[in-house]
């Protein structure tokens, strides 16, 4: 591994929380393409270890696959803990993100407030605010915890993601 890759790995490892790409770039004073190169090398390196690099395009996190560990040692939210409503909302957000609450409700034909609240509490989704033509929009996107929850390294590993997103 080259020096930048080692530093990127060290920074991500140090934090138990996800680390944003921006923070790493600022901290190491490197450009976006340098970070991409380092991450690509790091992903290759971690592929042969018990640790994987999760990357949702914005945040990065090192994690261990559940197949290597015992459930009793962790406090991860299980798939079975989500209601069918919450799972539906999660699927809609995962494949249509960023998406507004109104659009989610239009697809499901019912209010989504409770499911959204639950998913935010479980840190599976986050709110994303942006301004367009002077109007504030509130939309929802998946959080990096969603990758952990699904056991995938990035969103492209979701079933038919490229065709649907």
């Amino acid at each position, binding site marked *: 591994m080259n020096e930048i890759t080692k530093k990127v790995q060290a920074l991500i490892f140090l934090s138990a929380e996800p680390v944003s790409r921006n923070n790493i770039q600022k901290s190491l004073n490197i450009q976006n393409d340098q970070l991409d190169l380092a991450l690509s090398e790091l992903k290759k390196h971690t592929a042969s270890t018990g640790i994987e690099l999760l990357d949702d395009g914005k945040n990065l996190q090192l994690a261990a696959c559940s197949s290597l560990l015992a459930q009793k040692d962790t*406090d991860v939210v299980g798939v079975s803990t989500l209601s069918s409503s919450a799972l539906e909302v999660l699927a809609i957000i995962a494949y249509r993100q960023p998406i507004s609450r109104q659009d989610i409700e239009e697809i499901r034909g*019912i209010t989504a407030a409770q499911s959204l609240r639950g998913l935010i509490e479980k840190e599976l989704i986050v709110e994303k605010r942006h301004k367009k033509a002077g109007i504030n929009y509130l939309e929802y996107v998946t959080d990096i915890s969603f990758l952990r929850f699904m056991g995938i390294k990035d969103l492209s590993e979701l079933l038919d993601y490229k065709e649907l997103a």
Partner: protein
Amino acid sequence: MTGDNPIYSVELDNFTGPLDLLLKLIEAQQLDICDISLAKVTKDYLSSMQTLELDPHQANWFLVIASKLILVKSRALLPSSRVETEASQTDEQDLSAQLRLLSYFKNLASELSKSSDQYYARKNFKKTNLASSYDNINSQAIARAFKQLTQQPKLAQQQVFKLKRSSNIALRAELIKKLQQLQTLDLCDIGAVATTKQEKISLFMIILELIKANQAELRYGRGGQKIEMAK
């Protein structure tokens, strides 16, 4: 709820909204999602609505779909002009398309629920006991922990971390934050923030309260001699 034919009975406990209910009624009658199916399940939908106990927030969503279905059904039964037919076809197609989209996402949600593997991040681990001896902490050990807390503080440059002198609430929050950062805290370092006996007792009470709230634990550190506070 049952339709006209008891074969088409459908359990209504497991649906997540009016469109979902419609989907289940269509599936129960083994129909495709199309305009004809919508007209056929209208009666079932309306009768099932009567049996449901909906709160006002949900009821309006069900009523919107009910009104669309009644429109679909009435247009199917009554002769209409060409312009009206085209308009009604659009309404019906919109509802059919909405149902297809929901059905599609329900399938995706079902796929998501099948995911068996997950990734665990460091913060998801309940314990990191890897470096400690696993002896149970008993009352003697707790007494020893208090002694460690009240020991002569280390020199400032030997301390791994320093706590700020503040209120008990702020001190508790700071301890949690430090635990998250460092995973284990030396009791002697924690004790350095308190100068009087009263302050040290109060500090120990905070630690015990954190343990009671499952936010921290006391355990033997490496070597099994010293007790430390851990996450």
